[in-house]
């Protein structure tokens, strides 16, 4: 019975000391490595884990070691249930458990906690995710605009939307857009410098209606309609539909 009752001492970040069976402690690859390569008698420091978290982790390790060794009469389904209850904790604790499982290299616990978080994320829209985890949206207006623009003209090129909007594109890119689009309508933004004749020629060949936003959009003669479409990633795309003399 000698080696099975070897104990290992662990000291946490808040100076609590835990004495645990070796079989339980070496569920952590980190502790295993330190134990096998250092002095087995001294206390192992787990600086990044607090007493409360380590206590929970040791419960987990003990349960899994006992079930695997047959010391506890527990079926796989019951163990699965036990695990599910184990992760029913507040968010802060869950976060700490993930970090600790990662740092202590306990793979099954890391898998369990990561899957729990994944389930909290699935099916939620970005705003909902931010609320759940109290995450600040640090996309600057410019960054979000840049991503949106990058996605928009590429998306339009594939005819994914009914109207193609051209703004801030170089001439050859614009020609490429008009040549490749499946849209029937193309709107050129007011600030876009464009060789209208060449674009019109291209557009006529493909029977695309080209409209140019006027410099001054508040001119009363101009009829405008706004189309708003949610494209599913949370970006709302706005299409201005102006008719004017070219």
């Amino acid at each position, binding site marked *: 019975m000698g080696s099975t009752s070897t104990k290992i001492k662990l000291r946490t970040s808040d100076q609590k000391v835990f004495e645990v069976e070796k079989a339980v402690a070496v569920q952590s690859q980190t502790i295993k490595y330190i134990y096998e390569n250092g002095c087995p008698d001294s206390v192992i420091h787990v600086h990044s884990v607090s007493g409360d978290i380590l206590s929970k982790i040791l419960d987990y390790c003990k349960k899994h070691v006992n079930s695997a060794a047959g010391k506890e009469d527990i079926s796989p389904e019951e163990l699965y249930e036990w695990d599910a209850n184990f992760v029913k904790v507040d968010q802060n604790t869950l*976060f700490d458990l993930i970090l600790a499982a990662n740092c202590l290299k306990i793979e099954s616990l890391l898998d369990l906690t990561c899957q729990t978080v994944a389930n909290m994320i699935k099916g939620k829209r970005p705003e909902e995710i931010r609320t759940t985890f109290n995450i600040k949206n640090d996309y600057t207006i410019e960054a979000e605009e840049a991503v949106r623009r990058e996605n928009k003209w590429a998306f339009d090129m594939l*005819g994914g939307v009914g109207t193609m909007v051209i703004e801030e594109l170089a001439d050859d890119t614009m020609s490429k857009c008009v040549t490749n689009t499946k849209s029937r309508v193309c709107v050129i933004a007011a600030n876009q410098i464009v060789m209208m004749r060449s674009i019109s020629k291209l557009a006529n060949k493909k029977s695309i209606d080209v409209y140019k936003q006027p410099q001054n959009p508040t001119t009363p003669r101009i009829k405008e309609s706004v189309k708003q479409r949610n494209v599913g990633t949370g*970006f709302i795309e706005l299409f201005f539909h102006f008719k004017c003399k070219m």
Partner: protein
Amino acid sequence: MEESDRVARRWEDLDIDILVKIFQSFDIIELTSGIATVCTSWRMACCDPLLWRTLDLSMMKSNFIKIPLEPYVYVDARSDKTLNHLLKTSLSLSQGNIMTLIFHFNLYVSDDLLTYTAERCPRLRRLVMPAWNRIKKTGICKAIRIWQDLKSLTMPSIANPPYLLEEIANNCKNFSELKVMGPFDNFFAATIITYLPKIRVLSLRCSMLVKDTLISILDELRNLEVLNISHCLLIEIPPPPAPRRIMRELDQCVLDKASRLREFLTCMKDSCIMCQRTRNDEGLMRWYKYEEGVWKADEVSSLSL
């Protein structure tokens, strides 16, 4: 109790490897549904190459009907739009790291979309695209020219393979594995012998194959290591006036020639359901009639999905 308990944890600062691990359990639809827009650090995790080695779109089918004129399928616009959107977002997040790209046999990729895709995964090594109805010669050639690292291709049987195999021969120096889904005639075999003589792995499972074609493959493709003709309808055409006959077993001549191969995969059992199906479908397998996912199998491990 502890001061730290009351401080909210910063989930946006979670180690990127942990975030990647969490995202690894998401399927492609969940991954592209907006997680990347939560915050910039989560976007960075979403773009990790580990998540994008394989882009598997084989759960997506086009909403289409068959039509009597080219391209013989008409795809509903909304279905196209869904695919476009998914593919666009995936390609944007993948940042050029996709190595394997998989499409369903009923997913009719358009020519434009193929070009758009090729431009955004230039390091592609393996393509599985069983439906080419809407692909034009120019589109696929443009794509092949971009995919210089292409090693493995799963394609439908096409009537005129030379332009394609020539393009592969000129651009894809590492190309070594080919799977053809559909009837495989002597012309196709001759084209492979001409343009891809150094090919190493060839799978022609569940199709119709004439014995002479099989012999020429075995004779001429000297670098061939693996050949899969499982469940194929093997036809022997003796000199007239003898009629064609279906071969029930391989003769010694074929077996001798195939003995140099590292793996010669065959299955010609009457009791085998796949063999029966190939026979019923006369060598042109109607995958849509069978269980979901059965088309993905291949006795060659590097070609199965």
